[in-house]
């Protein structure tokens, strides 16, 4: 980002159909901008997207929102725009590692809130969350980043308590185990990377 440009975070929600990404990115292009990061998903027919774009300085978030939302009226977009702030609010210690917590059991209202609160109390950030419900059974997969080693230790130590309290089967897997079993990269690189993080 130079002095003449500024980065913006743009979030968009709409009913899914072909052409949404094409329309949004065209709007950004016509504003003189460039998309530098984008993540998109569709759930139950609803489209959701978050992107980071570099745009000419002097543009307000409201200008950008209007241009994207109102420039594509037939798509029924709900757009939200913020100026990008590079200062993170959560900066985990690099040795705390990334973990995947899975929970499996009976679904009921308030479950995600209970799990999320348990993690928030221990300063553990949820970086990604996936849930799948089949009948009355729910599977939750959470990608977690504890704030530091102490927080990671608390996560491991409290797992049984969480499992008993929610009457769900829980399991915690280190990211490297999943990378080892799912990717083809060299194991030694994984170990060296972890060593470098200490």
């Amino acid at each position, binding site marked *: 980002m130079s002095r003449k440009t500024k980065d913006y975070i743009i979030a968009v929600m709409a009913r899914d159909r072909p052409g949404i990404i094409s329309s949004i990115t065209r709007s950004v292009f016509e504003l003189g901008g460039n998309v530098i990061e984008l993540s998109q998903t569709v759930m139950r027919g609803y489209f959701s997207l978050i992107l980071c774009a570099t745009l000419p300085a002097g543009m307000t978030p409201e200008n950008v929102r209007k241009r994207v939302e109102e420039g594509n009226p037939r798509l029924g977009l709900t757009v939200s725009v913020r100026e990008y702030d590079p200062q993170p609010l959560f900066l985990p210690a690099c040795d705390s590692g990334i973990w995947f917590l*899975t929970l499996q059991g009976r679904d009921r209202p308030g479950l995600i809130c209970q799990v999320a609160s348990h993690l928030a109390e221990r300063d553990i950030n949820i970086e990604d969350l*996936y849930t799948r419900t089949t009948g009355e059974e729910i599977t939750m*997969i959470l990608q977690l980043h504890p704030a530091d080693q102490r927080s990671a230790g608390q996560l491991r130590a409290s797992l049984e308590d969480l499992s008993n309290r929610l009457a769900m*089967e829980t399991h915690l897997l280190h990211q490297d185990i999943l990378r080892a079993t799912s990717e083809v990269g060299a194991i030694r690189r994984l170990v060296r990377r972890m060593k470098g993080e200490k």
Partner: protein
Amino acid sequence: MLRTEDILMTLRMFQDENCDVRTVTMGIQLHDCADPDLEACCDKARRKIRRLAGRLVEEGKQVSAQYGIPIVNFRISITPVAWWAAHHDAGGLVEIAKALDEVARETGVDFVGGFSAFVEKGETRADRELILALPEALGCSNRVCGSLNVASSRAGINMDAVLAISRSIRALAQRTASEDGFGCAKLVVFANMPDDNPFMAGAVHGAGEAECVINVGVSGPGVVKRAVERLRGTESAFDLGDIAEEIKCTAYRVTRIGELIGNALADRLQVPFGIVDLSLAPTPRIGDSVGEILQMMGIDRIGAAGTTAAVALLTDAVKKGGAFASSSVGGLSGAFIPVSEDAVLEQAAACGDLSLEKLEALTSICSVGLDMAAIPGDTSAETIAGIIADECAIGVMNHKTTACRLIPVPGKQPGDEAEFGGLFGTAPVMPVREGGENFIRFGGRIPAPIHALRN
């Protein structure tokens, strides 16, 4: 985020399918512990093992907790005792076994392997003393394991050593008669013994190895069985090629876990990582059986026609998956078929479906064919030697490792059962065929096969 299906598949391996790291074995070189003074020799060995392996279990548990992966056993393998304790007679070697037992208990490992010798071409005085010492050394200790390499594709089969070790096996069975001859479960006789095997009872830290290394044995019969089961549960048509592919992919995942844990632990202990052994090692637990995999592959009665082909497919697919997963594959790396340690194999042997002869045939395509096989206590040393020689012949001629862990159960006959307890399980006493004793009594060495001349 990683793919959800990949995460759930890895999760299932630990939650439902008994996947674990079966053993982390620290190999320790003990040549520098040689000393003509017995007490000094024992002391040097104790001190060196304590120094190098003192943190093995503690650090291993931390790695296990760090990754959330169970490590079932921590073990030590050492330089074959006959190489560094050559000054001592059988009585002295028994004292060395006691010292090893003591230091194994101190360091918290369940076994130390390497009360061993390599005698495929001939025995030294020290080798002969070790063979004589084996019954008392393994009988009076709890954690010491022994092995003897009696044959190789380069040297042939040392039939004098085969007969001598057979006499020691009988004596060891008698020495531990109150436990159904359990002492013999700690003794393996090999052809083409690997120098870096992490699995007991045949683990040693052989020639050409570094001062100290971490070797890992992974396991996953349960994971492989469930993979085949899932394939059978799909609606689309599949054939044996698809089963092989499924096993290969599963072996890849299992091996990668072993490689990761081994590297991480070696890094913590500041020693080199040695090898990962891919062998499928069963336990008597339901869901942790090689026999169950074969049943899932359609061999309803283990030992029936087709069993050898099924084990060949299984072993080869495991090796292919493992070889792609790791550049440090070593040890035995084949399927284990220990009769007493695998509930389904034990049942097959008990009902007569699985005979010693069929197990011997399986040796040609897996690593240890006659493993934890109970035989009548009154089997002669010559007959035991004949069984061992047959196994060795398969190994020598096919340039592969073969081994025997035979247990002559004192006072028991075919139809009886031997009880070893815990993960060693129970074993039906299997009948043996006699009549080849005169061949064994000739002694000498069966020459190396013509294809040993490779240079």
